């Protein structure tokens, strides 16, 4: 079985991020990680490899040269090979273009199953997986929390719905996006780290993926970033004083009613 895993390298949640003076771009401290939700996708692919014979896991990202580090992390965890689709000098803001490029790669590479995180924790778009599935004309299920193999042509997936859980049987090829709770991503063994350090990661020019030039052209984006703003500072925490817990709760309820007006 050929499993493709699409990943993204994102800024570490603790990285220092500044808005540049043009208000349209960001300066991000050099601290990057494999996207939180994509780690679940990589882990799930590795677990499937343990269940299905002759499974090959290919990891791919559309990103800059720095993103090779995230690809190596996936190899260290247990992926077999990785590709970087180099986005240098190309559009990176329009998810539609990213999805077309990744779908182009998937067509060229071939696949039985595609996994990716439900969303990237930087832009929070959460639409790449869905769009890739659409471009490839394959079924998809978003934010799965469980994946079981029925046979090599069929999978059983679960996802949370309002007030409960839904189980679906899905014919392959298909695309699933992974949600927290599906597994616990592993810490790489040193043998994996060594393999990752030595791995040759081919860099693909997106213009070789058979997409029309106007699709990936620098000006192809239908989305423009107008500005970035920092979130408003939170008001200071108020400590509710009182002699007894009962008194404190009374005061809290009073404040929630009269000041916060939420009761």
């Amino acid at each position: 079985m050929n499993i493709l895993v699409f990943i993204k390298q994102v800024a570490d949640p603790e990285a220092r991020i500044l808005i540049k003076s043009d208000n349209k771009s960001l300066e991000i401290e050099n601290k990057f990680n494999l996207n939180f939700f994509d780690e679940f996708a990589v882990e799930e692919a590795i677990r499937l490899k343990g269940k299905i014979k002759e499974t090959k896991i290919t990891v791919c990202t559309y990103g800059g040269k720095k993103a090779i580090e995230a690809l190596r992390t996936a190899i260290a965890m247990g992926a077999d090979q990785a590709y970087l689709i180099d986005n240098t000098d190309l559009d990176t803001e329009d998810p539609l273009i990213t999805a077309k490029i990744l779908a182009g790669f998937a067509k060229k590479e071939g696949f039985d199953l595609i996994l990716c995180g439900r969303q990237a924790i930087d832009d929070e778009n959460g639409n790449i997986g869905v769009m890739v599935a659409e471009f490839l004309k394959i079924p998809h299920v978003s934010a799965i929390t469980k994946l079981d193999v029925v046979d090599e042509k069929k999978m059983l997936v679960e996802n949370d719905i309002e007030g409960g859980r839904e189980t679906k049987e899905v014919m392959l090829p298909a695309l699933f996006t992974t949600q927290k709770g599906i597994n616990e991503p592993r810490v790489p063994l040193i043998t994996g780290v060594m393999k990752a350090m030595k791995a040759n990661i081919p860099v693909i020019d997106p213009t070789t993926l058979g997409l029309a030039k106007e699709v990936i052209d620098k000006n192809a984006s239908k989305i423009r970033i107008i500005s970035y703003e920092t979130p408003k500072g939170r008001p200071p925490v108020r400590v509710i004083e009182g002699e007894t817990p009962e008194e404190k709760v009374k005061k809290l309820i009073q404040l929630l009613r009269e000041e916060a007006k939420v009761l």
Partner: protein
Amino acid sequence: MDFTLTEQQEFFKKVIGDTVDRMVVPKAQEIDEKDEFPWELWREFTALGYLGLRYPEEIGGMNADKIMCMTFYEEIARGSVGFAQSVIMNILMGTYFLYRFGSDSIKERCLYPAMRGEKIATMCFTEDQSGSDLGATRTTAVKDGNGWRINGTKMWITNGPICDFCTVLATTDPSKGLKGLNFFLVEKGTPGFSSGQVLNKLGCRGTVTGELVFDNVWIPDENFLGDELGKGVMYVGDILDEVRLMTGAMALGIAKGAYNEALEFAKKRVAFGKPIGNYQLIREKFADMDTLMNAARLMIYYGAWMVEEGMDSRLIAAEAKMFATEVCLKVVDEGTRIYGANAFAYEYTPQRYFRDARFLLYGGGTHEVLKDFIGRNIIGKL
């Protein structure tokens, strides 16, 4: 001149940093408070394979270069120096002589299991009356049939009370001073070999440090670790620079841990209506700390590069150990000042870094001894 880490070195640094954040950092405070060897963490962490860091791939190691080793030592000490000491003992000093001189049988019995974390290793130099002054070693090894008989007591032995084997420095001829010193392997269960007092330490808690007693311990000739008698001190010289640089890297790790937490605190702690990081006197502290840590890291990497290249690194290794440790002492102190009174409470972390840093003053050579060594080498014989 190129100061950049290779892509592989960067990747390794990132992976080990993430691993430490995930596995070690959350347990650091508990390790310190309990002051017990963290067996569960030991099993989980060593299962990843890092104990073979320095050794060739053919025997299950990673064959990491010296820069990567330094990044590893720094990162794991950033997580918990109590845990780091035990890990690094198995990686470096505790197994060095076995790898270099051990027979196939010794390697099978001790080295390879130690690389997998199944056995705990240690190295015994220090005695109650001798540390840096190796010539004052009083533990003796006397030829006895097809082996050696060892008598003496070692003190301040990292992993000592829980070790499965140890490399012991002993004199085979006290009249020869340094030229009478040699190394021997003693394994747990050998009659006469026992552990004595376990030290209750100010810092580096979680590492079990203590006394090892050799009471008429007989070991076979195979356990003599060397090419020929009298070269023990020379062999020490072959690894000493790496050990000193490692100590400096650990100091840097403690400093970085303290610095990171102080930085978080300075961003969040509000005084007089704004985060304290807005005040110039706090900013100055970060400017100084960052400058010092960068300088220390450059010295350590430079020394590691020299060791890797086979150059004479004696002075830079001693200087880097000394400088990085002094930087560490400065940074952990500033960390407590930034935290204010909270730093004085056991439930917060700055006091742990403050206590841990002290040990590195002594391990790897006291600064009084190192300064004399450096000065003597610079001035020469007059």
